[in-house]
């Protein structure tokens, strides 16, 4: 019985889709009822069933629009699917390319994240299961990320709240690095390039209008080196780092490290903000040392002397 009802609903929804995809002009609900021929006669029951079917199509991503039926007065709502918005462009994926996406799907696990299984089915389905998870992504707000992704796709400005401030941004780039998602774009009204941590964005509202701006060819990547923030040229600073902290320093300083003959490393960083740089140096404790320039070295020692020369009672 359950199977019969499921089959009937499936057949009816498919027939509704058949009407909409084969129609050249908007069709009213009454017309669709007649043409599909599987809806209840009772008006209220028809409405309920018709609404459920429309929602099922919309939930799958069918771009079902409501526009007035031409020539009706007073206007009657008509339903239409814009074919160019409905069909997936022919990606022409080779079997090997689809297998590669299959492998990515099974190898990368997103904790509590959106599933891509429907996407894979649209692209051609699942081949033999080839791998178990080898990379995990942290939990993230996928609904927010999808909205930002879509805003970039359609070049829509977005409004959101960040640090208690209302922002309007032309989003250019969505980027995951060092465990978090970042959004970079042109921040209105001063139109300055800014980067925001996505997990700190709230009340996100994408603008309805698409194609509002252009994205430059090479939008900047997120800069996770706060010591480099500031105007003008940074001071090139060389640090020697002990062997035991090299791996961590490489990600913490986000820079290449040249290993010398005794196993310690030399890193070069450009410093604009000394206070932030000294705070980062402090994380390396006595396992690192500023080598050059001398002024930076002396200033760091002066900074540390504030701790060694504190009056009694402090740390």
């Amino acid at each position, binding site marked *: 019985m359950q199977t019969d009802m499921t089959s009937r609903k499936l*057949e009816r929804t498919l027939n509704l889709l*058949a009407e909409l995809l084969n129609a050249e002009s908007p069709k009213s609900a009454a017309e669709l009822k007649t043409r599909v021929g599987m809806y209840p006669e009772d008006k209220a029951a028809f409405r309920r069933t018709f609404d459920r079917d429309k929602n*099922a199509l919309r939930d799958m991503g069918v771009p079902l629009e409501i526009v007035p039926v031409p020539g009706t007065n007073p206007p009657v709502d008509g339903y239409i699917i814009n074919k160019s918005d409905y069909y997936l462009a022919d990606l022409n994926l080779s079997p090997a390319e689809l297998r590669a996406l299959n492998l990515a799907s099974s190898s990368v696990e997103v904790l509590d994240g959106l599933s891509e299984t429907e996407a894979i*089915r*649209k692209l051609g389905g699942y081949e033999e299961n080839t791998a178990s998870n080898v990379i995990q992504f942290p939990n993230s707000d996928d609904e927010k990320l999808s909205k930002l992704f879509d805003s970039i796709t359609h070049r829509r400005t977005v409004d959101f709240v960040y640090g208690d401030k209302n922002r309007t941004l032309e989003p250019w780039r969505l980027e995951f690095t060092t465990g978090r998602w970042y959004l970079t774009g042109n921040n209105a009204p001063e139109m300055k390039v800014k980067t925001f941590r996505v997990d700190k964005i709230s009340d996100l509202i994408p603008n309805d209008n698409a194609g509002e701006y252009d994205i430059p060819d090479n939008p900047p990547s997120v800069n996770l080196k706060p010591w480099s923030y500031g105007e003008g040229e940074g001071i090139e600073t060389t640090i020697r780092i002990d062997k035991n902290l090299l791996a961590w320093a*490489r990600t913490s300083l986000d820079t290449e490290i040249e290993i010398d003959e005794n196993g310690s490393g030399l890193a070069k960083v450009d410093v604009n903000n000394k206070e932030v740089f000294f705070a980062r140096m402090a994380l390396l404790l006595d396992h690192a040392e500023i080598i050059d320039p001398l002024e930076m070295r002396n200033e760091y020692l002066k900074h540390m*002397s504030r701790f060694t020369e504190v009056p009694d009672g402090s740390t």
Partner: protein
Amino acid sequence: MGQLKATEKLERLLSMIPWIMDNDGPTMKMVAKRFGYPEDLLLNDLTKVLFMVGPYPHTPDTLIEVLVEDGRVWIGQADWLARPIRLTPEQGFSILRKAKAMDLIIGEEDGKELRSAIVKLEASLGQNRQTFGVDIPELRNNVWLAIDDAIEMQTQLEIDYYSYSKDQTSTRIVHPIQLLNRDHNQYLYAYCETASDYRLFRLDRILVAKSTSHGISVPEESLETFSDNGMWNLAELNNLITLKITTEDSWIVSTYPVERVVTTNDGFIEVDLYVTGIAWLKRLLLRLKPETQILKAPEHIPYDLARQAAQSIVDRYKV
């Protein structure tokens, strides 16, 4: 007969029909497996439901044609379903995220197909490598490769591990179980012979990882799978301290799990927080204002810890 809801069937059929039309009579078995559709249900829905679908007036020349013969299936007269529905933003985002993450670990040669698939996906989604990026720096080195290999081969690893909270490096034999992400960091979950227990090792603190030829052999009584329960149970550390900090350093309240926060009459803030190790506390204190005071601490934590830590740094520069 397996069960699927009508909406689940609809979603699978709309993806499956174009593929069947493109693949000249694939087997029912293959279609069922590829699109996650129980085979008995598939036969029923293709021959009894899809067969009845088409635009008005539902005459034979408008209805979809389905032919199932010798375990193979052909679909015709369904041009209007010859392409799947475009990807939703959620679907596009989730598949591209995984593909780009995979690209970080797949080799240059093995990754050719993945990279060309990414380019095609990006083009169809209005994205490019400049507008959507994924990077996990910990996966870009030999440590990750050695661990991944050891997990796959089920062999023990010798690792040099830097403990951030103790400021010590140790060499350990570990039996790798899995790689996982917690608190925005990548970890190796493994049985550690030194600790005779399971431990999490942060990937960017593993200095060296060497494969050994010994297979994983965790004592049976210790066998367990990873669980978040109690993973960050700081109270167990018994290292609660009270700090008196300036208002400029109030950021620590939102950055670390704190037990108590009180603003004092003289304009400072008192904070109770658990420390995971002395080295961790040294690093914290050296990022706070020098006026910071430790008001209360367990016996093994000196009250002038920041001064001692800063002195060690200054001493290094005297050599």
